[in-house]
């Protein structure tokens, strides 16, 4: 918990890292941004290492992003597509992990619909590092790191300073507003923890049925005046509103959710021009965000996707490094 470095460690939760540990990932990612701009987008950092990508839940962007990251570091990628796997034949997660590990792997990137599955896998594997690529309604730490990284770069640009080597200073004191289904969102949990560790002031707003009973444990505060909060925010973080939540159990309809908490042009006009808007994607236009706002210049969703690769390169690189080895060499 709260390690100052990800070197040689698992990444299961943002709580695994201290503020120093978070900053380390951002700095290493900065150095990998440049790799993505090269004509030969590959460095030999993880040559000979094997990364297993196990996605037990549908995901396109996260899986592609992790696998691209592993390949750019020259790791071999062993990708398990659940639809065609033995899991469909009734094999347990534990047996699947044992089978994959017997093939000789160095890291497991795991996406699972059950909260805590990566923690359990970390207890089952013998030597491999475990990277949580999103578990149930628990956490999605790599996404929060992407968001921190993207916001840090955007704020640096606005202030005309270098983001590289700025640590968490640009995020310190920033007013972050997270809107929507906090309770079922692994992105929201990881974001609240990460922004709070970075020293930001984190506030959340959403329907009472979609807020955890106590957001204080994530270092956040509950807010209730959306328009006032929008005007104050430096960072507005939108979350995907899952369709099934709008079926009448949690909110009466997606339409009502959109009317109360969706960001349309009128509400977007309240957000300061120098503020930024993030969204982990995929966006549902017309629900949490109107189409015009989705294309607003303050919206960083495309940068977030692009930054996915360097952040995940940094995570894999650090987790698969051995303590004492040079990191930036």
């Amino acid at each position, binding site marked *: 918990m709260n390690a100052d470095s990800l070197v040689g460690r698992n990444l299961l939760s943002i709580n695994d890292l201290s503020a120093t540990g978070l900053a380390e990932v951002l700095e290493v990612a900065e150095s990998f941004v440049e790799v993505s701009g090269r004509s030969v987008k590959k460095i030999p950092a993880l040559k000979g290492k094997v990364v297993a990508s196990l996605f037990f839940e549908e995901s396109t962007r996260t899986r592609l992003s992790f696998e691209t990251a592993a390949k750019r570091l020259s790791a071999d990628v062993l990708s398990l597509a659940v639809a065609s796997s033995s899991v469909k034949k009734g094999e347990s997660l534990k047996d699947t992990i044992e089978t994959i590990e017997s093939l000789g792997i160095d890291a497991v990137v795991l996406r699972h*619909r059950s909260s*805590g599955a990566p923690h359990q896998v970390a207890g089952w594997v013998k030597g491999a590092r475990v990277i949580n690529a999103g*578990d149930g*309604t628990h956490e999605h730490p790599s996404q929060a790191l992407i968001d921190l990284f993207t916001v840090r770069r955007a704020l640096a640009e606005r202030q005309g300073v270098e983001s590289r080597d700025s640590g968490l200073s640009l995020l310190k004191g920033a007013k972050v507003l997270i809107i929507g289904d906090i*309770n079922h969102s692994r992105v929201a*949990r990881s974001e609240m923890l990460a922004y709070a560790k970075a020293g930001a002031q984190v506030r959340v707003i959403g329907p009472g049925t979609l807020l*955890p009973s106590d957001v204080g444990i994530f270092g956040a505060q509950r807010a209730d005046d959306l328009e006032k909060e929008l005007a104050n925010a430096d960072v507005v973080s939108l979350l995907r509103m899952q369709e099934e939540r709008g079926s009448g159990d949690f909110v009466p309809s997606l339409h009502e959710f959109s009317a109360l908490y969706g960001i349309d042009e009128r509400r977007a006009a309240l957000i300061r021009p120098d503020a930024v808007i993030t969204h982990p994607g995929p966006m549902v236009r017309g629900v949490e965000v109107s189409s015009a706002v989705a294309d607003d210049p303050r919206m960083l969703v495309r940068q977030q996707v692009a930054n996915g690769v360097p952040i995940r390169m940094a995570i894999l690189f650090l987790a698969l490094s051995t303590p004492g080895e040079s990191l930036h060499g």
Partner: protein
Amino acid sequence: MAELIMIQGGTAVFDSGTRQVDLIIRDGVIAEIGERLSVPAGAEVLNAEQAWVGPGFVDLHAHLREPGGEAAETVASGAAAGVKGGYSALVAMPNTVPAIDSVPVAAHVLDLGRRSMLDVVPAGAITIDRAGERSAPMGELAALGLTFFTDDGMGVQRAGVMRRAMLYAKGLRLTLAQHCEDESLAGGGCMNASALSSRLGLAGRPAIAEEAMVARDLLLAEHTGASLHLLHLSTARSLEMVKAAKARGIAVTAEVAPHHFTLTEACCEGYDPLFKVHPPLRGASDVQALAQGLRMREIDAVATDHAPHAPETKDRPFDEATPGMLGLETAFGLTLEALGGDDADPVLLFELLSRNPARIAKLTAGDERRHGLSAHGGDLSVGSDANLVVVDPSTSWVVDRNQLASLARNTPYDGRTIRGRIRHTVVAGSLVLNDGEFTR
């Protein structure tokens, strides 16, 4: 089987207090009680020095899994686990496959029980297939000697169904036992609803899900005059309500399970499904309140909710794993500890583990026991059925999941040092556990 047994040198625990006496057991009953009795010729002498001698324990809440779940436990293996835990009688929960909601299944379980090491009396289901809709044939089941009915594993969700079941049960002088959790509040949850469940991203089963049903059923019991037993209560608020209901004269009894007065929700932190149970492990203040409730006689019985599970149903993600944990072999020591260890009152301990549960299950000498089983939980007296246990309250042992008599391994106490060891268990006058070892 006529056995001649002498229990020598122990502290006998009577309803009224303790005395240093020897006991002689002959032809299934206690034949003599007295100080320094001479050893009868041919008697098996059991050493009871530094130990308490009392009525065998009675568990109101054991999942024996047969029929249908024999990979996890059988009546025979569950009975063995019971004997090792000091029990002479178990109430077998009806959430088997098929459920104990018909005469053939109940008769089958009674029959399996007769061939086991101790007395087994099945609880009947309140509703067919425990589905909470149509009433099970409680009258036919009562004719076999069943007196205790529950849909345990699931509470009877609809108040109207529960009210009618109470009215019907009252006429037959049966007790309804409720698993109190309103699924519209608890549904989909897998641990206590709390700041911790928020952090872990696990859906919660809130205390209010239990308390709302406790409140509802106490009102229904008052309204119908039926006899109600509340299974595995887990919150301070539930206890408060039971206390108030008893003060109003409502015919209610309540049990708590050892895991609820020894373990907190913090055990779920590592997502180990061994700690998943319904109702869930709660916060420290509830755990303390339950232990306090035991000491204050606000709770009638300690019941294990012994819930064996095959490993493949536990080696799963937390939300998918089956709820429940083993309890029979560890209940005595954990209860002793909750009652204050060295300062524990042995009379209270036997009330909680034997006398009250025997009374609630209608297994005492005064009850009409149509299933033909012997009497349990009575005061130690000459002529009474010899269901006895000799327990050593000062010796410690370490729980080893691989050394359990249960077929299953899902104890949450593996590696824990527990003080209080079962030395001998006598069931219906036969020695079944001798110095911690089975006699056959």
